Every structure is written in structure tokens, then in C-alpha cells.
């Protein structure tokens, strides 16, 4: 029973999230292997394949990082079976190298690299447009207009990749992956269980001598693909228009453009071309569209990827069509109904039909009335206690006077240690950067350095920089915040959990063993909720020169409470004894558990939110020890 039925019968209509629709498309396309590393907005693609993979003979895995996932998928494709590797947009940076080389080799089975770009940066640190990566690596791109299109296109991407003998990119965005729609399920192509590796070192070994030959073959292959995209259904001149104005729309903006046409009452006056393969573009179709319109607006999100190609095609074809794009459509953020309506109106020299002044005034007034509500660490989260302990040690050792401890951090739930009142994150560049950044600091500044990195991120890309710190004699302290899951993206397992993606038992690799093997000078393991133990271990680490590692371990409180409630266990909650509370507000101003509240001058705990971690009962959080277990 579920709201969505990804494993439903062909013809059935069900509500599917864009990412579920993509997964279903792959299943319908005879997928054999799906590999990924969790990351918003891509996670649900592999989550879905894991949930139903057994039924369709699909092997799934959470790989340790995107590069490894790519390599797993590539070997499947080389063995003649179909595979997909999905990741958030920035993950493509990590997976870049194998795809650069694999593109030269070409593929046997269909293989799709899903790049879930985060336009709007809902949960990423860049808005990078990976279509440029695909262009550079010669990967044809499929870019769907919405969840329904994504469902059809995912299957087609596998088919075309195999037909063309070339790996392809499926570029989706947060808007598509996290939109749900009514989807009609299609028939499923069965996959073979075993592939066959046909030995051919001149192709599968990318020595320069082979690569030089393969690069020429690649260019020829892409020319042929360029011809083929002229006739695939995802590229289409939808409306001819009256020859004056035309719009070329790519990706998620297509349906928004159509809505805008309706709102502006443009009827069939305006031409419209839909682009589903922004690389290679259907050149002839584009030139035909340009030739039949005086002025053309390119509507696409983020970078002018299609726009610059179209301009170049106009030049090649000696076409005098006026081509506009980023003059009217924003470079940053999503191009939603408002942006497209405004851009299109400017382009047409019309007044926009909808006035946004009222909404803007309301928003201005609302902002003055309400505070932001950023995501925060959950009540009972062990990360909060660990960050609080770092702050306690900083104060206790009098380090604040010396410029304070420098606290590089990393990517995961614990990046939220950035928020007030903890304010315990000083830098964050990318996955695994905390340890490398710390090494860099240790050679050039005098401050003590305590960095934080999560368990999953440690396995993803924390091990080489730890080795580097040891090898290059850095003086740093590394706190591995181990909540035994990849929490932010929805509790995916990793090598330190002892379970595979599908829940099978496997070896559990302990972070402390890895740290010792890397040569760390001291390695301590403390429970994240043991505030006194944490302070002691951190004090020792900071006072020891060389590389000290403290593993702060506590299962993610959300998962832990869920499991304990299921097992019939009671969660012992904590409440403020009002007799003892002096209203000093230190608990709110230094620790900041979201379950604490102050209403009508009374500080208490919202018991609906309390997860019973007991950290507040420690004298370091409340000098009065006013937090008491509820009977």
C-alpha cells in the first residue's frame, strides 16, 4: 500500500514523483544496474530502484562516491547490459573523470548519467549547469520538460544510448525530480541477468595510442548522432506562428512558456520550438525555425547553453534573425511562471497580463513580521552536542582570546552547525573538504583547528585528505560525526553501517580502524550524547600535536527513536522544573534545542518535539540543572 505505485501494471495511472517516474522509465527500458551516491535532488531515483529492483532483476548499490558509482555503471554497459548512474549536479564533478574517458570508448549497452542539477540551489552549494560538462565530454543530453516527459525520456535515453553506442546524460532539475504528476505506466522490457565482457584492450584501455584513434571515431559518431536528433520526437516545432516572433524552449521551461502564451492570449501568433536534446541540437530544425521568424527568444534556465549554440547556427546559416535570451530570462535561479511571463512580455513589447505588485508588497510586509526558519539540527541530534562540546572546549581552554578555534566543516546534516546559536562551522567548500582545508590552515595560521565531517562523507572523500594530513605533518583535530547513516538525504546506508542498499548484511567498516590505518596520532571514540566524555576527548585532542581523530558516535535520533518506538520502548522526555529555572536563557542562547521554547516568559520543553536525548540535563547546558526527566 502506498500513495505511489512504481511497480504497477502497464496502463495503470498513478501519482509519481519526478524521480520515481525517471526510475520507472529506466525499469521500462530494461535496466540491469543502478548505482548512485545519495544527494538531493537525485536520491529518490535509486531509492525507488532499490525498493522494486528485486522484482525486475535490477542490481542496485549505494556506491561510496559518484566516481565509483560511475565506474560500476560503465562496466555493466561494457558487458552489454543497461545501466544508470544518478547523482546531484555537483556529484558530476566527482564522476567526471571516468565519463571523460568512457565517452571516447563508446558503449555496448545503454548507459545514462543522470545529472540532477539544483536550479534554485534548494540544497546545493552551486547552480552549475552540467550541460557544459556533457558538451565537453561529448555526451548527448536528454532534458525533459516535466515528470511525464521524464518518464518517457528516461526509457528513450537508454534506447538511444545503446543504438548510438554512446553514453548519454539525462539532465533533470530539482523542479522536475521533486514534482509529482499523474503518470500512466508503460510496458516493461526484461533485462538479461548476465552480460558478456568481450575483451578488446585497444578499446577498453585508454592508452594515448588508443585514445588518439578513439577521439577521431568519437567525433564521427557525434556527427551521426547530430543527424539523428533531427527526427527524434523530443525535438519539435510545435507552432509555426505568424513569422514575427518565435520562442525556442528547452527543459522545464517548456510548459511554463505554454502557460504564459495562454495568459498573454497569444494564440497561434507566436512560433514555438521545443528542444529535448540541447546537445547535439537538431541544427537543421533550428535553422528552419530561425529562417521563418524575425525575432526569436531562447527560454532556458541558468546558463545560455542553447542560446549560444543557436546564435552560432544563425551565423553559420547566414541568418539575420534577431536572437535574444538572457537579456530577458534570468541567469540565476529558476525561471518560473513569473520570470517567463515578464521576459516574454519584454521580448514582445507587451504589458504583462499579471501584476505582481500586490504580492510583492505583501511579501515585503511579511518579511518584516516573521523571522527566517532555516533547517536546524533535530531535537536530540548528537551533532548538536558535539558542536556544543567544541564550543565549550574553546571557552574552557581560553582559546577565544587567541582568535578562537578554526572550525572547517563538510557537507551533511551537520553543516547546520552553522546556524545560531551553535555558529560552529567556519568553512565548507565541497564533499570531504573539511580535512584538506584543515591541513591547509595548519601550515599557515596559529589557531587551533577542529574540523567536523560526517560518517558518509568520510567514506565518500575524507580518507585521502586524512592520509594527506598525516603524511604532510599537519596539526589538526578531526571530529567524525558518526550517526551511522546518510541522514540528510533519507537514511541511506554506507560502509560503516553493516548493511547494503537492499538491506543485506555486509562487513561493517569502523571509522576508528580506518583512522588508525591512516596513521592518525590519537584516535578516540565517544558517544555523541556523552557531553562530559566529548569535552574530555576534545581537550586531549586539542592539546596533542599531530593528527587527532575523535569519532563522536550516536545513531541518528530520527531513526533511533523510530526503531525504539517500534520495539515498544518508551522515550523518556525532559521538562523544565520551573522552581529551578532562573530564566537565564543560556539553554536557548548556547545550546538551542528546537524543542526548547519560551512563551509568556516561561521557558519549557515542547514535549511533542523532545526526543529524550538527556543532553539538557547536563550542567553545561543548564547551570541550574533544571531539566528533569518527566515521570
Amino acid at each position, binding site marked *: 500500500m502506498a500513495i505511489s505505485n512504481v511497480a504497477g501494471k502497464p496502463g495503470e495511472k498513478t501519482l509519481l514523483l519526478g524521480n520515481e517516474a525517471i526510475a520507472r522509465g529506466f525499469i521500462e527500458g530494461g535496466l540491469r544496474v543502478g548505482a548512485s551516491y545519495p544527494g538531493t535532488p537525485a536520491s529518490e531515483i535509486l531509492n525507488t530502484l532499490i525498493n522494486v529492483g528485486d522484482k525486475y532483476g535490477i542490481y542496485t548499490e549505494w556506491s561510496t562516491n559518484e566516481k565509483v558509482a560511475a565506474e560500476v555503471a560503465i562496466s555493466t554497459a561494457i558487458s552489454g547490459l543497461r545501466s544508470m548512474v544518478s547523482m546531484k549536479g555537483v556529484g558530476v564533478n566527482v564522476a567526471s573523470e571516468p565519463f571523460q574517458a568512457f565517452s571516447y570508448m563508446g558503449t555496448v549497452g545503454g548507459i545514462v548519467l543522470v545529472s540532477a542539477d539544483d536550479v534554485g540551489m*534548494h540544497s546545493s552549494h552551486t547552480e552549475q549547469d552540467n550541460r557544459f560538462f556533457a558538451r565537453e565530454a561529448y555526451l548527448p543530453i536528454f532534458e525533459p520538460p*516535466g515528470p511525464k516527459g521524464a518518464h518517457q525520456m528516461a526509457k528513450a535515453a537508454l534506447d538511444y544510448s545503446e543504438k548510438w553506442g554512446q553514453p548519454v546524460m539525462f539532465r533533470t532539475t530539482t523542479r522536475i525530480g521533486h514534482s509529482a504528476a499523474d503518470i500512466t505506466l508503460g510496458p516493461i522490457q526484461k533485462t538479461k541477468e548476465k552480460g558478456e565482457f568481450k575483451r578488446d584492450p585497444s578499446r577498453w584501455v585508454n592508452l594515448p595510442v588508443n585514445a588518439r584513434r578513439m577521439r577521431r571515431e568519437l567525433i564521427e559518431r557525434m556527427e551521426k548522432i547530430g543527424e539523428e536528433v533531427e527526427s527524434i520526437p523530443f525535438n519539435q516545432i510545435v507552432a509555426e506562428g505568424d513569422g514575427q516572433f518565435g520562442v525556442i524552449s528547452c527543459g522545464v521551461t517548456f*510548459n511554463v512558456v505554454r*502557460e504564459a502564451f495562454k495568459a498573454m492570449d497569444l494564440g497561434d501568433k507566436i512560433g514555438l520550438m521545443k528542444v529535448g536534446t540541447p546537445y547535439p541540437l537538431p541544427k537543421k530544425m533550428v535553422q528552419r525555425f530561425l529562417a521563418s521568424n524575425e525575432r526569436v527568444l531562447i527560454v532556458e534556465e541558468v546558463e545560455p547553453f542553447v542560446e549560444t549554440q543557436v546564435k552560432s547556427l544563425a551565423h553559420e546559416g547566414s541568418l539575420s534573425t534577431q536572437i535574444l535570451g538572457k537579456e530577458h530570462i534570468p541567469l540565476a535561479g529558476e525561471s518560473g511562471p513569473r520570470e517567463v511571463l515578464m521576459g516574454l512580455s519584454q521580448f514582445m513589447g507587451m504589458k504583462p497580463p499579471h501584476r505582481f505588485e*500586490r504580492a510583492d508588497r505583501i511579501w515585503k510586509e*511579511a518579511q518584516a513580521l*516573521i*523571522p527566517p526558519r532555516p533547517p536546524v*539540527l533535530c531535537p536530540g541530534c548528537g551533532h548538536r552536542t558535539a558542536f556544543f562540546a567544541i564550543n565549550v572546549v574553546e571557552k574552557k581552554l581560553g582559546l577565544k582570546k587567541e582568535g578562537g578555534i578554526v572550525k572547517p566543516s563538510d557537507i551533511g546534516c551537520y553543516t547546520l552547525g552553522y546556524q545560531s546559536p551553535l555558529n560552529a562551522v567556519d568553512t565548507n567548500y565541497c564533499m570531504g573538504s573539511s580535512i584538506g582545508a584543515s591541513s591547509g590552515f595548519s601550515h599557515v595560521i596559529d589557531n587551533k583547528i577542529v574540523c567536523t565531517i560526517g560518517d558518509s562523507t568520510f567514506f565518500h572523500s575524507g580518507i585521502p585528505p586524512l592520509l594527506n594530513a598525516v603524511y604532510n605533518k599537519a596539526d589538526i583535530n578531526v571530529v567524525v560525526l558518526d550517526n551511522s547513516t546518510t541522514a540528510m538525504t533519507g537514511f541511506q546506508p554506507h560502509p560503516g553501517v553493516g548493511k547494503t542498499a537492499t538491506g543485506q548484511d555486509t562487513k561493517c567498516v569502523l571509522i576508528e580502524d580506518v583512522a588508525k590505518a591512516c596513521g592518525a596520532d590519537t584516535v578516540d571514540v565517544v558517544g555523541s550524547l556523552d557531553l562530559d566524555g566529548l569535552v574530555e576527548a576534545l581537550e586531549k585532542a586539542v592539546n596533542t600535536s599531530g593528527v587527532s581523530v575523535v569519532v563522536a558516535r550516536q545513531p541518528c535520533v530520527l531513526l533511533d527513536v523510530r526503531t525504539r518506538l517500534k520495539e515498544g520502548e518508551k522515550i523518556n522526555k525532559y521538562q523544565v522544573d520551573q522552581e529551578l529555572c532562573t530564566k537565564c536563557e543560556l539553554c536557548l542562547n548556547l545550546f538551542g534545542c528546537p524543542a526548547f521554547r519560551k512563551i509568556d516568559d516561561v521557558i519549557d520543553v515542547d514535549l511533542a518535539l523532545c526526543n529524550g536525548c538527556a543532553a539538557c540535563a547536563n550542567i553545561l547546558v543548564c547551570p541550574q540543572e533544571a531539566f528533569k526527566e518527566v515521570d
Partner: protein
Amino acid sequence: MAVDVKVVLAGVGGQGAVLAGYVLAASAIKEGLSVRTYGDMGMSRRGGSVSSFVNIFDKEGTSATAVGTADLLVGLEPIEAVRYCRYLKEDGIVVVNSYLILPSTVGKKERAELSEVQNLLEFLKKNFKKTIVFDANKIACEIDSLTTNVVMLGAAFSTGKIPVSTETFKQTLRDSFAPKIAEMNIEAFTRGYDECSGK
């Protein structure tokens, strides 16, 4: 008649705004309608501000909602209702839970100012044709504290703005969840509906 209804659900991570949006969308599909939803996921879930947009059509449409164009705002929490009310049309309807959840990141001064829920509710009443206020938290806690989202959906249905029958919605709950959970949510839905119908 053409169906084109835009609903915005706004709340705090953990209240179930996104899940409520899916159940609403699934119920619309049962009535033969087309839907597009967009819900915040990933980083937003950790106690942050969360919204879910549910657009229901008889033909096709998009999941993107421009400010000033939604028909109904379902505010699971008053601060979040104020945050997302810009999406509502002038003649749109607000249904809002009066139970306040203060962000843990606010400072001492803001804490005192924000405790005045009345200011937030007045703001909504001033700007929109109709604002229905009630304590959904109190009703939910009598059933199960996790049912606030469905109590609020009951209230949303009572406005008559949602083009789905209450029977279809209840059936969707039965089809989507285990019997015990479905019945609990149906009770929450009915309580919310009864509390607000005629308001």
C-alpha cells in the same frame, strides 16, 4: 467547467506538509483529474520552513505557481502561513492553524515579539478575503500529534475550494495507509472538516 485549482500547503519540517500534498494529489487523480505538485525535500526537512504546492487541472498544467495566483493557502503554522501567503490571490482563502512554533534560531528580542500570534493572524485577515483560524494542534493531539496535516486538510476541504469529494479523499487514505493509520487520519480529517465548515 474547466478545473484549475492551486493549493499551497506551508508548515514546519516534520508537520507533514509534503505528504499531505501527495495524498491530496492522489485523491484528485482518483477523480480523473490531472495534477502537478512540488514539495520541498532534502535539506528543508530538518525543522525548516516547508511548502508543498498542489495544482489540480482537468487538462495539463505545471507545478510552478506564481505569486498572487493560488486559490487556497493551508497554513500548518502561523509564521509559515504568513511566509507563503504571497502566493495567494486577493480573493483566495486562508486556512490556518493558530498553534505557533518558534524557530530555535531566533534571538531574545524576536522571541518576545513573535509570541504575539495575533499580529500574524491580523496580517492574513487584512490581506485576504477570508481567513479561517483554529487550533488544529489541539484537535490533532486528541487523536495523534502527527495528524495535524490531515486535520488541516479537513479544514481545507470545508471551504469547498478543492475539486475532490470528501469520500474520494477518505478512500485515498484507506488505499494508501494501513487500516489503523487510515482510520486515525479519517477521524482527523472529519474533525478538521466539522470544526471549520460554515466558518
